């Protein structure tokens, strides 16, 4: 245990914002801080490699293209894709999920078809599918979860039928932090001939993810939650699915031939990347992937579990605090959402802020889940490997003072 911690104290020095601040940053499910190597990679791209990738035939453009395509290969290797062509760069997970909904969803779902979205999804894996249901006439079914966040076999059997063409589900809920058994759900969907779309936003940065082992047909994640820059994300799609799917946005760099009466689109994945790409962002994401890989996803996962256990242990002993989900660390994956009796979550977060602790408050872009749980909003603490025991303790000390500071008796 001590060895994990001592390594973390060294790693914290890699993050300029953390090294230069007294803030306990515990909102890592919203976005993570960036290590110097990511900032340097971004800078280096613009200082010495910048030209419009895939456009020019001059050497500098080739350098830019190579850097961008190297980043694609790094993403593919990181999540276990069969080839780099299966990675489409996007702005973020939201755009990745919209891409699948607007293209694959709109193209292949028909009236009479059924498809399934879990109640615990972030709005970005719910609203695009709601739109697909409205526009295609296919029936959208709600996959319910238990109050612990668990998706049971009974719940799956209730909604997955012979008519199911697609299931969209998160690997780790941004509210519960619980890990869903994607392999199991994928097998059920595949057995009826459907595909599975996985939101990997909260899993890819915190644990080993292998899309082939999961059986994922599509998987989305954001770079900025993985210590990379904002504005770069990725969509994994199985090659044969991407190939038969129409483009999302149309324009430059996604075509082979354009005449007034005849158009041929570029090959996968370029047909999904219209317009000048975010090469600097991709290069930054590549650096972030190299960085977390050098630390090791196993170390990151173990360290975050250790901090989660300390957080939950402390929270259990504070009266008036209610944890959403179980109180076992293995069910939380770095994310603990909670309420404080009689105190609005925004007041909780404001008091935390005064004490130098950054946590999230609100509906976490998961309002259908809030309705399902019977709460209007909640507070959330979310951890990264770079957080310390002292930061967790500062959060706990503040949490134990909140009801008193809001005028409730001891």
């Amino acid at each position: 245990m001590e060895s994990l911690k001592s390594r973390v104290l060294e790693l914290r020095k890699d993050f300029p914002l953390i090294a230069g601040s007294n803030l306990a940053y515990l909102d890592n499910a919203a976005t993570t801080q960036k290590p110097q190597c990511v900032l340097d990679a971004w800078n280096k791209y613009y200082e010495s490699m910048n030209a419009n990738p895939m456009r020019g035939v001059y050497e500098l453009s080739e350098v830019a293209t190579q850097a961008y395509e190297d980043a694609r290969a790094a993403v593919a290797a990181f999540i276990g894709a069969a080839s780099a062509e299966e990675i489409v760069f996007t702005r973020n997970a939201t755009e990745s999920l919209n891409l699948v909904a607007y293209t694959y969803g709109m193209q292949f779902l028909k009236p009479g078809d059924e498809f399934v979205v879990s109640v615990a999804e972030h709005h970005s894996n719910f609203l695009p599918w709601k739109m697909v249901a409205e526009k295609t006439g296919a029936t959208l079914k709600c996959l319910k979860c238990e109050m612990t966040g668990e998706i049971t076999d009974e719940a799956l059997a209730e909604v997955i039928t012979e008519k199911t063409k697609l299931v969209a589900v998160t690997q780790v809920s941004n509210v519960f932090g619980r890990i869903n058994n994607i392999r199991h759900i994928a097998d059920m969907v595949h057995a009826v001939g459907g595909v599975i779309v996985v939101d990997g936003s909260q899993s890819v940065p915190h644990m080993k993810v292998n899309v082939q082992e999961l059986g994922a047909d599509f998987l989305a994640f954001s770079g900025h939650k993985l210590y990379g820059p904002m504005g770069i994300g990725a969509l994994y799609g199985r090659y044969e699915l991407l190939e038969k799917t129409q483009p999302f946005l149309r324009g430059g760099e996604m075509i082979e031939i354009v005449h007034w009466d005849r158009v041929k689109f570029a090959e996968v994945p370029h047909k999904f990347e219209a317009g000048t790409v975010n090469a600097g962002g991709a290069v930054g994401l590549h650096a972030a992937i190299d960085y977390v890989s050098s630390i090791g996803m196993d170390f990151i996962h173990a360290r975050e579990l250790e901090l989660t256990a300390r957080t939950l242990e402390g929270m259990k002993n504070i009266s008036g605090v209610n944890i959403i989900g179980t109180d076992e660390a293995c069910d939380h994956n770095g994310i603990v959402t909670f309420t404080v009796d009689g105190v609005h979550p925004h007041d909780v977060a404001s008091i935390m802020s005064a004490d130098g602790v950054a946590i999230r408050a609100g509906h976490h872009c998961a309002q259908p889940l809030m309705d399902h749980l019977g709460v209007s909003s909640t507070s959330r603490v979310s951890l990264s490997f770079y957080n310390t025991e002292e930061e967790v303790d500062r959060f706990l000390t503040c949490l134990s003072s909140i009801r008193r500071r809001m005028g409730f008796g001891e």
Partner: protein
Amino acid sequence: MESKTFYSEIINDHNLHPLHKHDIEKPDIVLEGVNPSCGDDIVLQLKVKDGVITDGSYVGEGCAISQASADIMLDMIIGRTTDEAIALHDKFMNMIKGNATEEDIEELEEAGVFSEISHMPARVKCAVLGWKTVKEAIES
């Protein structure tokens, strides 16, 4: 290390023990005010006779800042004319923007505790919800 927060005794007291959080009989004006960022949702009820606010209340839920501010607001406007209530609204908004004189803040009595909210931009909408709603209600 416990820092001093915005949650003074005045705010906590109005939040936990509001004087005006209930329905009133046959209100002349009923208007809902919503602050989507915190999910604050209040329904303001007013009785107005000959241009004077004779009674007022609110129901709903939200954060301590929104609830306390609405309660304090009602404390101040009940018994005043609608014109006076609008004038207080304007002073309150000026204070939130950091443009009020000390005299203005003094005139706002307990509502003056919200003068510091200008340092918490994320919470400004909570503090002004009651005042914004009452102005809209009077002008409707």
